[in-house]
């Protein structure tokens, strides 16, 4: 299973539909399992920074195979991997919630990031988008 552009567009539609319902302007980024950008969309008049933040969240989720919000765990000195959260590989690592890995069963096939709402809203928009693809 790989993420196709058609799947990315379906996720875009679901994400934008939900964002409009809750009255938020956001950006949606979808990356493949290598963290490379497949598609990025910024809703009209959404702040310009949201596009880059969404991209970073998607990259982080795909690269670590974890929700971007869980990167904070690497800031705990008692955890293995302490310090990961501050090493900014690729200038894209972020610990902000709103990036989720896209999974086909146990396998991470890509990542999605949303920016524009509160972190909680961004996560829900990601979940709505992933749900629209019918995988997982």
């Amino acid at each position, binding site marked *: 299973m790989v993420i*196709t*552009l*058609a799947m*990315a567009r379906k996720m875009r539609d679901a994400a934008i539909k939900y964002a409009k319902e809750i009255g938020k302007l956001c950006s949606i980024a979808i990356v*493949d399992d*290598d963290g*490379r*950008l*497949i*598609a*990025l*969309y*910024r*809703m*009209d008049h959404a702040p*310009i920074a949201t*596009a*880059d933040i969404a991209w970073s969240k998607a990259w982080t989720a795909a690269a670590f195979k974890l929700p971007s919000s869980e990167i904070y765990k690497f800031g705990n000195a008692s955890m293995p991997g302490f310090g990961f959260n501050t090493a900014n590989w690729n200038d894209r690592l972020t610990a902000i919630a709103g990036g989720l890995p896209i999974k086909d069963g146990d396998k991470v096939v890509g990542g999605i990031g949303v920016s524009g709402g509160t972190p909680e809203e961004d996560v829900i928009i990601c979940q709505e988008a992933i749900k629209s693809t019918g995988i997982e």
Partner: protein
Amino acid sequence: MKEVTLEMAERMMDAGIRWARDVGKGFASVAVVDKGGAIIAAERMDGAAPLSTEVAIEKAWSVASFKTPGIMLARLMDPRNAGSILGDHGLGLIGRGKGRLAPIPGSIAITGDGGAMDVIGAIGCSGFPAGMGEVSDNTVCQAGIVALYD
């Protein structure tokens, strides 16, 4: 046209990608930015090179930033043009824009109602040969621009 909307960007990218697939028989990424160079949308066609999305974004950014098409930037910044009026003006641009400046053909400005210098955004494409041939990044961009006027 006063500004580039996401809907317009989607129409342009879809037309560019369809051209790339059906006519150009190749793989491409297309990106659209607003007048300030901020990303509106970018898409990578299935099978296109992973870096092409980022290159398309940077090409579009460069065009919006300079209100100058990629082919012109390429000529301005070509070291072989040093010593000519064109080259003397352009060589100082090399390395500008924190490394984002991509003086590569295959990127065109989107103009508004105010004429050629009323740049409201730009489209960039990457994946095909970058020249000005019939099957090139530039043609993909043209297919995108044409879709705006359909």
